[in-house]
């Protein structure tokens, strides 16, 4: 892509993102006008003196909708970014952020915390679980004789299977009455009940991890041709690999902790964006983040408002849209190659 086209594409994506946010905060089961919704946000940002709405309706906008919108943007951007990195590092088009057992580990951690009666600490459990799973997967890979991508993937599959089995066993063993419903919703991926601290966690994770990944664009380009080629281009392959893996794991762990294992975003968005902008990572990475954020925001907005007063786990929406989208992308690839 030439630079004017690229600039226009970026500007278009940013404009779409802003427009999406503008519209999404005005949508929801409660009938609040767009003007009042934005008036409330301006009031909280200190741009307007008096709140336009009653304290309760003010809270609907500021404490329910906005944290969810922010979290959806962050989770979408984070998962798309992590997916892009995983696909190139493993040179595997089926890779997604959950490859190394991260989501299964997170689910196990969350279920343990939930069953201990600490439903509100589920994100912490998920985060510890995903890090534990990653550490185990890398340890197993190292025991197999050095952590190459294929060994890490195989070890990850083992850890993921073990963690899912343990999760199922725990649910079978201890879920009483209808407490399994909460677990199932979370396993499907859901941003319902997101509060500001969740949104803040997502934003901080992005601020910490995204720059590390975005600045490795050139290295990732080299990786696409294999590690040997990358090394011959003067890149410290081992160091880059571990840096990227750590950043991706941290990012994914936080995203799963907040939203559960939301599927397809980290798999489909990188492919779709690659099809549009090519595989130069300096363009691909930020574009994937933007598209992931927009896609996730709309999926979550649909999940929370289309079936009013019901709430749908957002993972169902992303899969419903993502699976056919993935098929279309595969067909496009077929025509290209």
């Amino acid at each position, binding site marked *: 892509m030439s630079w004017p086209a690229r600039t226009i594409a970026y500007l278009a994506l940013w404009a779409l993102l802003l427009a999406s946010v503008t519209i999404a905060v005005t949508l929801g089961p*409660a009938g609040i006008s767009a003007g009042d919704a934005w008036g409330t946000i301006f009031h909280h940002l200190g741009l307007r003196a008096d709140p336009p709405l009653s304290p309760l309706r003010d809270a609907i906008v500021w404490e*329910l909708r906005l944290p969810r919108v922010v979290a959806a943007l962050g989770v979408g951007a984070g998962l798309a970014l992590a997916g892009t990195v995983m696909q190139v590092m493993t040179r595997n088009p089926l890779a997604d952020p959950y490859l190394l057992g991260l989501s299964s580990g997170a689910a196990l951690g969350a279920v343990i915390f939930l069953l201990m009666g600490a439903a509100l600490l589920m994100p912490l459990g998920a985060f510890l679980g995903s890090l534990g799973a990653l550490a185990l997967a890398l340890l197993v890979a190292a025991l197999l004789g050095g952590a190459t991508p294929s060994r890490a993937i195989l070890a990850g599959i083992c850890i993921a299977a073990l963690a899912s089995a343990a999760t199922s066993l725990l649910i079978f063993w201890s879920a009483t009455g209808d407490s399994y419903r909460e677990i199932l919703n979370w396993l499907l991926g859901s941003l319902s009940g997101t509060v500001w601290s969740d949104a803040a966690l997502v934003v901080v994770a992005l601020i910490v991890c995204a720059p590390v990944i975005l600045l490795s664009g050139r290295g990732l380009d080299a990786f696409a041709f294999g590690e040997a080629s990358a090394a011959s281009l003067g890149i410290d392959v081992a160091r880059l690999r571990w840096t990227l893996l750590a950043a991706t794991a941290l990012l994914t762990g936080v995203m799963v902790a907040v939203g559960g294992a939301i599927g397809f975003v980290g798999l489909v968005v990188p492919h779709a964006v690659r099809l549009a902008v090519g595989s130069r990572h300096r363009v691909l990475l930020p574009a994937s983040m933007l598209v992931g954020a927009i896609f996730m925001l709309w999926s979550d907005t649909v999940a929370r408002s289309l079936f009013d*007063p*019901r709430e749908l786990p957002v993972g169902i929406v992303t899969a419903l849209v993502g699976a056919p989208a993935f098929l279309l992308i595969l067909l496009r690839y077929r025509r290209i190659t």
Partner: protein
Amino acid sequence: MRAAIILGICLAALAAVPAEAATTYPLTLNNCGMDITVPKSPARVVAIKSTATEMLLSLGLADRIVGIGFQDGPLPDTLAAAGRDLKVLADKVPSSEVVLGTEPDFIYGGWESNFAGDAVGERPMLSRLGIASYVAPAACRTVKPPKLSFDGVFGEIAEIGAIFDVENEAAALVAAQSAALGAVVPDARGLTAVWYSSGTKAPYVGAGNNAPAMIMDALGLANVFGSVDDGWISANWEAVADANPDVFVLVDSAWNSAAQKKKLLAENPVTSRLDAVIHTRYLVIPFPASEAGVRNVPAVVDMARQLKALSFDTAP
């Protein structure tokens, strides 16, 4: 409502008229989309879930029960003595083999899913083994049951009475419950309510066509989610906040107690601003009484008392 109560009393009276009524066996009836045949009054019964156990105990059938499973909570005081020595097959749903090991001739399930292959066993399989199976009608999924009413609950009592040839006990229970229900004066203050069953991130609430709707209706409460044609739904906190109900009905269960719900409602930045939470206007119902069964009427009586004690001077 009043018409329903009068109808209930009439039905009870009708059922009570043939005082020496006896069931003619074999008895065939359609239960949740399946024809079942009961060759004689069942003598070895397995009851799954509290609603099934409590129904049998209320009809004086404790000596027929060879095992119970998946109880949702302790028995109410009125039934505790009768149910003291029941054999608990499993805390969760017992497996098919455990149930068959008791050599039952009748299995009574509070949920249709209790009869899954990985639970007690599929109903056709049980039927081939000569075991009649019965799903609490309000919990049927194969055939959508009509909107639950107290006549529906009394119908289940009468049906179990017929199956076990204890029509007189059933008629007496229905008459007593009809009278108790008839004495409840629905609240006339025009209050709205949300039936909060479980869930934290997305509340699982009572909708328009099962026990929650029936009980709230009897109490004179307008159910915020009453227009949704379902028993219970995963709702969204924004819809709850938008409705700002006058009262919350909190279901008290071992896995999600009323105390936990009160804490969550008071600590959440949005729900803490709801009128019902600010003024702590809560009605509490034990979980086993929140599904269709013999405890619905006592629950209505108890909750009507709780509701009467609530003050609405400040709002709405």
